[in-house]
Each structure stands twice: as structure tokens, then as C-alpha cells.
């Protein structure tokens, strides 16, 4: 009789469905997965160790590069940790700006997720539509910080600068001219807030568009309904958070339960799944886009009505203005000290978390009173989620592994750090 043995296959690290550099060693019985062993760390850069040798502010830029599709949420966790140790609070306008950009980031992240997850499962078109809207929001990132992705916009004590009065416009070129150019610039005549208002008004219909492509799509449902079921007990045990937890029907969202920034003042709902399968998590994320859009709308309205400072007036932490430096010796000294030495953070330790699009993104920061962190630990949601891979995909078919990687919403910048 022929001996039947399990077969081990290697999946990734160079595989389009591996979302970066995930290497999976799968033990297969026919087409059924018996054991999954994810190998991570192929993108490990030692962010936490690098941060230990740099002044606090110079590590903000590293945060963008962790989860590189939800940049500002990572910064938010980091600056909140510093603010807590130093004992300062950002002005209320900065809190609203942060709330607004956190939600813009959430939409950006979910658009990336819906596009790539659908692409993994064979629906090409969603990706193209999702990137159309991502482009608009990336322009907001660029308008406010000068960078499309790695913004370094949040600073301890507020945000780098106030929102721009003018939204950059497309210039005429061989490809963009005439009526086309006019249509593309239609939202961009006024300030960034005008642009966002127009975007938000329109975005609900765009989410409906994605839903017409997927929600009742027979193939999509065959690939996601009943696949990768995470029970509430498993979700607790594996330290899951964000849509992974809510997809399993646990009503937990840090924005509601432990509100930070201006989340206590805005109105939004938390969508919950019932079965905890990939389809439920899909529905949760789609609804989260609508809710994020609602929050952005409310923030736009508030920001329009309430001008004010966006940074604390404390030159030990925040740099003085350029004009101030020109004729004030004190301001010049403060500027010099801040940018050569940085600021010393009182000794202590804190854990501060934000509800990032993927789940709870936390920063555990230990300071010994120096101008550099003594220890910085990044708690990445994707790391906890991916660790449950073996338990969740056991007994599933090989293509379901791809569906599961998609629904975890893994980004290796944050998992490998």
C-alpha cells in the first residue's frame, strides 16, 4: 500500500497575496491545511532600538513607517504617550484635527484593505475604484504635511501646523486639460475643509459603489461566508482588537470606551458582526468607512467654526514661530535647544493606545528622564492577529488562507517593526 504523508508547502515571502513579506510554511493534507507556521521578521528594521538613540521628536517619522497605510494613527499613539509623560495637552483645535486625520487615515486604510482583499480573492475592479478615492485623501495628507504618506504631522503638544487655506489644484498638462481639468479641480477651489466637505458628501455613494461590486456578489460570498470564523472566546484569547474583535460581535472600540482626542464630542456608531467570519469583518469595515466619513464631516464643521492655536505655547516642547525667532533671543535659544538636544521627558512609564484602523495600536514608553526614550515598545495589532493564524486556518483549504490573510489586514511594517 502506498504511504500517504502530509505535504509541506512554502507560501511567500514573494507572493502577491502575502501582502508584503509573509512567509507561510503550510502543512497540507491534500488541499486541507493541517498546520500553518507564519515566519515573520523579513522586514524587521529594529525601529524600537533606533528610537532609543534619537531624541523623542525624531522617532515620530519612524511611526509612519510602521503601519504604512495608517500613518497618522501610529503617530497619534506615540505623541499621546509623550504628552502623557510630559503632562501636556494639545489645544482643542489640534485634538479635532487629529480626530479628523485619524478618520481620514481609517478610510485610507480600509480602502487599501478592500481593494487588496478583493484583488486577492479575484475581484480586480474594486482595487481601481478604491485607489481613486485614496488619491483624493492622499492629497489631503500632502496639503497638510507636504508628504503623501509619511507625514510626521502630529507632534507632542499638537500638530505641526494649521490646515492650509488653499487646496492644491491640478495643473494643466497634456493629459489634464479643458473640461477634464475643470472637473478634477471642481472641489479644489477653496480651502482643504471645503475639499473635504465635498469629498465627504460624495463618499457615501462611493462606498455604495464598492458594495454593489461585492456585498451580494456570489463569488465574493462563496469565498468569505463561513470562512475563518473567529469565536468571541478566541478573539479574547488571542488578544484581538479592532474589526477582528467587532466582527465576532464584541462591542469594543477604544474611541467609545476610552475616548481620546475629540472622539467624546463626535457622534458615530460601532458596527458589529454576528458570526465572526470573513464576510462579517468585510461588512464591519465597510460600515466603518461610512462612520469615519460621518466623523470627518463633524470635524470639518467644527474646525470651520473654531479657529485657534494648534500647538501648545510651551517653547520647552514646541518650537517658537519663525518670525518670533528673528527678533527674540529667547526664541532663538529655545529653537536651538529643541533641535539640537530635544526635550527631556520626566522619568516614568506609560502605555497609550489608539484605535488604529487595524485594531489597538499601543505604545509602551519608558523614560528615564533623558531626551531619548529608554525603551519604546510598539504593540502592533497585526502582530497579535497574525499569531492566531495557525489556530484559525487549521482545517481550511489553501485558498481560504489567502482570504484569511486578507481579512487580518496585515501590513508588515507594523508586524516586523
Amino acid at each position, binding site marked *: 500500500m502506498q504511504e500517504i504523508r502530509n505535504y509541506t508547502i512554502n507560501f511567500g515571502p514573494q507572493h502577491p497575496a502575502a501582502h508584503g513579506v509573509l512567509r507561510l510554511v503550510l502543512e497540507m493534507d491534500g488541499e486541507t491545511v493541517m498546520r500553518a507556521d507564519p515566519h*515573520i*521578521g523579513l522586514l*524587521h528594521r*529594529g525601529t*524600537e*532600538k*533606533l528610537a*532609543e*538613540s*534619537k*531624541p523623542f521628536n525624531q522617532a515620530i517619522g519612524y511611526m509612519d513607517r510602521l503601519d504604512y497605510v495608517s500613518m497618522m494613527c501610529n503617530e497619534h499613539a506615540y505623541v499621546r504617550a509623550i504628552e*502623557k509623560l*510630559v*503632562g*501636556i*495637552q494639545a489645544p482643542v483645535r489640534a485634538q479635532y484635527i487629529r480626530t479628523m486625520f485619524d478618520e481620514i487615515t481609517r478610510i485610507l486604510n480600509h480602502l487599501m484593505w478592500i481593494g487588496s482583499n478583493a484583488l486577492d480573492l479575484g475581484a480586480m475592479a474594486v482595487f481601481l475604484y478604491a485607489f481613486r478615492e485614496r488619491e483624493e485623501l492622499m492629497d489631503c495628507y500632502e496639503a497638510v504635511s507636504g508628504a503623501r504618506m509619511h507625514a510626521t504631522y502630529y507632534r507632542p503638544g499638537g500638530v505641526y501646523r494649521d490646515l492650509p487655506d488653499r487646496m492644491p489644484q491640478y495643473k494643466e498638462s497634456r493629459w489634464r486639460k479643458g473640461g477634464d481639468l475643470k472637473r478634477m479641480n471642481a472641489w479644489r477651489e477653496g480651502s482643504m475643509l471645503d475639499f473635504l466637505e465635498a469629498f465627504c458628501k460624495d463618499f457615501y455613494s462611493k462606498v455604495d459603489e464598492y458594495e454593489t461590486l461585492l456585498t451580494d456578489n456570489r463569488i465574493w460570498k462563496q469565498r468569505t461566508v463561513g470562512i475563518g470564523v473567529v469565536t468571541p472566546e478566541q478573539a*479574547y*484569547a*488571542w*488578544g*484581538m*482588537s479592532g474589526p477582528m474583535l467587532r466582527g465576532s460581535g*464584541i462591542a*469594543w472600540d477604544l474611541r467609545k*470606551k476610552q475616548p481620546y482626542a475629540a472622539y467624546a464630542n463626535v457622534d458615530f456608531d460601532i458596527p458589529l458582526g454576528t458570526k465572526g467570519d470573513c464576510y462579517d469583518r468585510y461588512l464591519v469595515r465597510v460600515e466603518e468607512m461610512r462612520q469615519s466619513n460621518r466623523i470627518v464631516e463633524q470635524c470639518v464643521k467644527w474646525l470651520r467654526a473654531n479657529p485657534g492655536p494648534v500647538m*501648545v505655547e*510651551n517653547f*520647552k*516642547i514646541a518650537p517658537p514661530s519663525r518670525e518670533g525667532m528673528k527678533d527674540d533671543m529667547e526664541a532663538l535659544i529655545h529653537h536651538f535647544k529643541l533641535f*539640537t*538636544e*530635544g526635550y*527631556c521627558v*520626566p522619568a*516614568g*512609564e*506609560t*502605555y497609550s*493606545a489608539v484605535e488604529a484602523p487595524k485594531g*489597538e495600536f*499601543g505604545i*509602551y514608553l*519608558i523614560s*528615564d*528622564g*533623558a*531626551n*531619548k526614550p*529608554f*525603551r519604546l*515598545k510598539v*504593540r502592533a495589532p497585526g*502582530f*497579535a492577529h*497574525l*499569531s*492566531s493564524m495557525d*489556530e484559525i486556518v487549521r482545517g481550511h483549504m489553501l485558498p481560504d488562507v489567502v482570504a484569511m490573510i486578507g481579512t487580518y489586514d496585515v501590513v508588515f511594517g507594523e508586524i*516586523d*517593526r
Partner: protein
Amino acid sequence: MSENLPPTLAQRLNARFGADVVAVTEWRGETTLEVSATSWLSVFQALRDEADFRFEQAIDVCGIDYMGYGQSEWDTTGISSQGFSRGVEGQGPGRFRWSERPQAAPNEKRYAVAVQLLSITHNRRLCVKCYCPDDALPIVPSLTGLFPGANWFEREAFDLYGIVFEGHPDLRRILTDYGFVGHPFRKDFPLIGNVEVRYDSEKQRVIYEPVSIDPRVLVPRVIRDDSRYDQAQAEAAANAAAGK
């Protein structure tokens, strides 16, 4: 009045764990419980299962190396005739090679493990911490039996700090390269690393060589113990008063 207030989490932890507790601190609404490595597992069992605590989730397990805690490279009290170079010479954090790495003082209690717990039932967080008794071979019992999600976090702490989690089912390296030597996040591991890797076209394979770059950290490590933050604290107090 004060006796009518319900006991704080710190007080309840003290009452429940008594002799197991090394220290409980409460700071700006965050509670940290320090226990010894011997009572590690029993404390977590109680924290997870007892109705008063019910910490269902181990959010994070973090290894820490306390070597060099509170040391600076820049004297802020005396007056010096030297320039900037006094801050960047020497072998402070990130400024040494593998061969020059600093030696730890014996019995320093370098290594610690900090676990962030979250109670979804009570909407509460707790940080539980323990120092490893032995610097040469830091051992802490593994939490994987209680919180399966601690698995990878403990592998990470093992990989980066060399903390051994007793009872862990699969204590392999996780973030570093296959065949990596050393524990890179230890404070005596050079920031530049010790080997670099490149493709050798003659040998037609990837080869490892000692690092060729020099350690270079631009900003000295400064600890200032002065009144710089009085303004921040005064502002916070003023804000709190205005809020009321």
C-alpha cells in the same frame, strides 16, 4: 467621606495578592503591579478569572533591559571648557562596536517583563511587571497556557532580549534572521549590529561579514533635572481648573 469611596484597583490588588505583591503604583490613572517571578502565573490566573478583575486580554508582553538606566552623556550641572565633542565621545548607547560593548554590573536585575492587560468587562487596564531574578539566564514562566495570544509576544521578547519563558511550547526566534546570533535589543548589543550581509558574485552566494560602518549617534543623551517642566505642569493645572 473618603471611607465611603470604593477601593481603587491598586488597593484591591494589594488586598487580594498581599505577600505576592512587590509594589503597586498608580500614576495618572495607570496602575502598575509588580510581582515576583515565582508568583507570576498564579497572579495572572487570578487576574484573568476572578470576577473582580476579569482581565480577558493580554494586550502586550514586553521585554525590557534596564542596563544603563538613568545614565547620561552630558553633564548638566558643572561647567566645562570642552565643546560638543564631550557629548559624543565615549561609548554611550549606540556608540560602541561589538568588541567594545559595555559590561553589566553583576546582579543588576537588568531584565524585566511587562504585560499589558485589558479588561473588556470592566473597561480597565493594568500593567503587570516582574524583574527576572538572574541576569545570566533570565527566566520567567510562560503565559501561553493562560493567554494563547502571549505566544508570539514571548517569542519576540526571547528573540530580542534573550528572556526565556519557561513552559513556552515553541520558543523560537521570530523577528531576526534565520541563524542570527545574539539578542539585538539588549543594551550591550551595538546599534550598528555585528555582521552585515551581501551577495558575493565570485562565490555566487550571500555572505556574512563584520560590519563596515562606524557607530554614529549625533545627539548626546542628556538628563535634565531642572524646572523646565514647571510651566507645563502649571498649564495643565490651569486647564484642569478651567475645565471645572
